[in-house]
């Protein structure tokens, strides 16, 4: 018997709907589930000791694992739901997602405890009662969808812009000089392509500004990276990226060397042992864990650093425990899985049915790639420490659900990839 679709037979669908019911991309799904599985098991190993000695977790070694597993199940379900959505509907959702994100980012700043929670002087979490979540996660998705939707129709906007920039504006009669110069400015911005970038820049500045108020450096970097990737993929002139990139580098240097907090962070980054019991402690413990692993690792479950040495070992620093237990070989394999996931993501972007899909997948994939890179770079002290979790591995229910929802988005795009012509 041919399998019937839940509510209609395929025959009854419009062509649009039929496209939305193609097969999801199995390699991407499998890589995701594989990493999710490994992540869960490593979380169990990393968290069990800390959980078993803490009153907060009722001395239950499985505490973190259980919660994460529940969220993983929910996340996979959400992923499935999202993957079934016809992502074309998201074109108009982008603006709203962005709007909600901005509202939530403001809310997290202004709401008092316990509605908004701050940890280590960073106010990043909204309290939902049963769990907490970071509005920055919504902001990531909002930016990706909005940028993708908006930039996917860039060719039309470009034509209009080309028309606008054809001739130098002439001063009309009774036109005020102010209005005339505005015309000149708009001509110039259309001619250079700057005008097209302004709305995106405004969005980014607003989001980044709100994030830096929390403060949340890593989310800012991630959103910038994803936005830049989408802008880049959509065909914006590469010169802007050179300009933007150098600005970012200069800005980063300014931050690093001019603002005190960050500059002590830099000192610790260069030599964690300069403040071994203070700011350098976590990094040192992480380095110890990574290095102790050696080539083949101490063996699964045999980390020593998880015995309350490495703070946040089930969270941002879980990869250090992975390195310690599984060694260079295991860590490299996991990095390889992430790399494959990312590569498959871009592959899906290349093959997506339309530019909107492509750009959205580029955004989501870039988010994931940069997040993985930054997390592992922090854990191995390649870059100064910043609070960033490892997708599918770090403890954090809502983040995991949102991560899987993003994967669902990619899968949704993958469903609409036209099948190659047969024969």
């Amino acid at each position: 018997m041919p399998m019937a679709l839940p509510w209609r037979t395929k025959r009854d669908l419009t062509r649009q709907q039929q496209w939305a019911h193609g097969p999801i991309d199995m390699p991407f799904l499998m890589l995701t589930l594989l990493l999710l599985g490994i992540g869960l098991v490593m979380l169990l190993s990393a968290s069990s000791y800390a959980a078993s000695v803490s009153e907060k977790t009722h001395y239950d070694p499985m505490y973190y694992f259980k919660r994460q597993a529940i969220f993983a199940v929910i996340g996979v379900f959400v992923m499935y739901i999202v993957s079934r959505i016809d992502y074309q509907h998201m074109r108009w959702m982008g603006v709203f997602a962005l709007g909600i994100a901005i509202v939530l980012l403001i809310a997290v700043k202004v709401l008092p405890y316990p509605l908004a929670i701050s940890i280590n002087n960073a106010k990043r979490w909204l309290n939902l009662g049963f769990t907490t979540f970071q509005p920055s996660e919504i902001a990531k998705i909002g930016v990706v969808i909005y940028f993708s939707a908006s930039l996917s129709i860039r060719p039309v906007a470009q034509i209009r812009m080309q028309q606008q920039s054809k001739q130098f504006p002439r001063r009309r009669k009774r036109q005020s000089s102010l209005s005339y110069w505005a015309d000149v400015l708009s001509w110039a911005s259309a001619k250079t392509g700057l005008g097209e970038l302004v709305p995106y820049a405004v969005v980014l500045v607003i989001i980044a500004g709100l994030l830096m108020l929390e403060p949340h450096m890593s989310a800012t970097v991630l959103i910038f990276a994803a936005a830049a990737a989408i802008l880049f993929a959509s065909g914006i002139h590469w010169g802007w990226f050179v300009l933007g990139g150098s600005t970012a580098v200069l800005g980063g240097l300014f931050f690093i060397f001019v603002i005190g907090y960050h500059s002590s962070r830099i000192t610790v980054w260069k030599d964690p042992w300069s403040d071994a019991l203070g700011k350098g402690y976590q990094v040192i413990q992480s380095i110890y864990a990574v290095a102790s692993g050696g080539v083949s690792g101490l063996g699964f479950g045999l980390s020593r650093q998880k015995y309350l040495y490495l703070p946040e070992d089930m969270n941002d620093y879980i990869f250090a425990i992975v390195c310690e237990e599984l060694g260079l070989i295991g860590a490299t394999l996991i990095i390889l899985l992430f790399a494959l996931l990312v590569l498959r993501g871009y592959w899906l972007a290349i093959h997506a049915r339309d530019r909107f899909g492509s750009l959205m997948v580029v955004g989501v994939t870039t988010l994931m790639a940069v997040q993985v890179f930054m997390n592992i770079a922090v854990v191995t002290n390649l870059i100064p420490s910043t609070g960033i979790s490892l997708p599918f591995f770090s403890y954090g229910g809502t983040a995991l659900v949102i991560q899987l929802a993003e994967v669902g988005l990619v899968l949704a795009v993958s469903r609409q990839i036209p099948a190659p012509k047969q024969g």
Partner: protein
Amino acid sequence: MIQGQAALWRKGSVTVNQERKIREANKEANRLVLSRTVKLMAVFGVLIFIPLIMQLYRLQVVQHDELEERAVEQQTSSLSISASRGTIYDANKNVLAISSTVYDVILSPKAIADKQKELDENLAKAKEKGKDTAPYDWNVEDVVVTNLSQLLELDENGLREKCGDTNSQYKRIAQKVESDTEAEIRELIDSYHLAGCVYLQPNTKRYYPYANLAAQIIGFTNDSGGAYGLESKFEAELSGNPGLVVTAKNGIGTDLMNFFQDYYDAENGDNIYLTIDSTIQSYCESYLEQYCKRYETQYGGVIIAMECDTGAILGMAMSPTFDLNDYSTVTDEVLLSKVEQNAKDIEAASKEAVEAAIAQAEAEGRELTAEEKTPKTYEEAYNEAYANAVYSQWTNKAITDTYEPGSTFKAMVLAAGLEEGVIDENSTFDCGGSVKIDTYTIRCSARSGHGHQTLAEAVGHSCNPALIAIGQKIGREKFYDYLYRFGIMEPTGIDLPYENSSNVWPYDKFHITELATASFGQRFQVTPMQELNAFNAVVNGGYLMTPHVVDHITDPAGNTVYTADTTPVRQVISESTSAQCAEILEGVVSKFTGKNAYQPGYRIGGKTGTSQTLKKGEWIVSFVGFAPADDPDVIVLVIFDRPKSVDGVSSVTANGDVISGGAMAAPVAGELLAKILDYRGYERAYSSDDLTGQFTAMPDLTGMTETEANQALQSKQLSYRVVGSGDTVTGQIPRSGNYVPQNSKVILYMGVDAPTDTVEMPNLKGLSPKQAIQALNDLGLFMRATGASGYYTSTTVCTGQSVDPGTQVQRGYVVDVQFTDSDVADSPD
């Protein structure tokens, strides 16, 4: 056509041209998305992971070993188990130095603050729930501070200050707390659940049961181990190797026992057995202390007693000395009185120096800093002087200080002369009171000269011209060679730290005048140990030994791991020469300048020495004595460093003692030798000289009739008186076997028991021997004279008695009475 374009279509009419344009733009945009995404793929799918893998390789492979070691270091707690320091025993296995466990008391202000926080929380909860608040309603810091300040006698405010540093987890508040206090602190910790807030760390403390016995030899320890004396010299042997328990622990320091644990046993230190005998050592020390006081020596003194055949040091006493259990405190009165004077001197010198500096600065037009302008306060000067005094009391003068040996050195010259054959016992010398060498005139102690004398007489008189003559006969080269052979030119090699050597002219400066002065032991300096060791070689058969204080060392299991080497360094002179020397030196004691060292029944030989110092009116007097002279077993050196002259010029002390080796050091050496020989089980063997007119053993008269008793006593040249009216002797004083001077009157009890009551000891000081005998006999006491031989001279007076005046003693008791002949002097000039 997708939605965006549809919207555009709807906006208005679109020309065919526009439609074409849009299609082309779309195509171009799609192409761009493709090529750009491929580039992103390369960057984010491949490139960014490369540095990550490289960094992992760097950490996990390149730096793996180094970082893992550091990780393991923090992951394990290695509890050091301190090894117990070895014990130091004397020759009779009496404990001289021993370690025991004590505790350091540590506070953790952080834990106290945490505990307080926990209490406060519980208190709030209890209040909320209406439960009993009493268990939580107290202040941790108050409890800790009040109790500990009481138990450890500490200042409360100081403790509170330490508690205030709540970041700290380690504040040591008391060191080396002994076990009774430790138990009280443990109780405090238990009853208030203060584990973690207050804790005890084991430490060790060194105890010296005999306090100042052999202080400079044993030395002491500080926190880093042996700091002085044997404790420092044998640090490696004594300290042992601490053990280790390595346990895995978690990040907050809790041991993870089931993870892994490793043990390395502690190896306790070795035990050291000394040749020093605490009895002999205490003889040396008490004589030294007693006589340093009496002679008012300004720089203390030294007594060394050594076994002749092995070089084993039996006793080595120094004055001033100190308590090893409190080594930084000066207790010696002379030293303390000097501290004040020295402090004043330092203060004055500092003032002068500052004034000079100011004057110079003014002349140069320079500004001085406030520090440069301020002279030392008296307190600063006092502290400096006190510190100097502390150092000086630690000094082992026997091996670090040097002095001019003076006439005692003549023994070596005599031995060298005899060995080289340049003189023999029949040689004669003429002394005219002085001798001219080169352009210098050297005088003899007897200004008028000793006249014609035999070799034995020349040595006995300590005649400088005679010894100079011997030295000249030996000659520069041979003489200098003998300095080497007698071990004068190098440290003796004694097993004590900081040994010095002599200060002798180099050979190219050793001319005929130097040879002359060296012949009577002047103008060069040796350590007391070198002098004694060289002298020992003269009398012990000619063998130069290595003096040593450590007899053997055993490991904790009792196996001997080290035994002192008693093989001679070299034979300096032949056995026969040595015997000849010993005989001549015995004569010095029995007949000449050394006669104050005479002890009836023992054959003592020796040589006096009185050496000049650079300051007029200050002498170092010494005596080297050995016994028994026919087969020397023990040799002693007694030095008194600068006895205080009554007027600063003449050689008499305020007590009337003549400042000379013969008058001061010889009697001490004689008494000491007698005591040591007694202790070592030597029987007094009275020579015929001793017996005629002097001593006899009391026969057993019990049961005899008076006639029989009379006969027996007559043969012993004793008289008697009778108490009672029985037929036979029922009791006698003194008891049989006791030695009594001949011509003493003994008491016979006929039919009545000898009384057992006691009499009070009279004071004999200053009496002549005859008066002393009379005084004692009146009370039924008897006298055994020691000290000067032939004591029936007009210059012999009693200087000491073995029982203090006023003590109750039994009738018949034989009192040792010391006599000194004040008519002996061997001043070098």
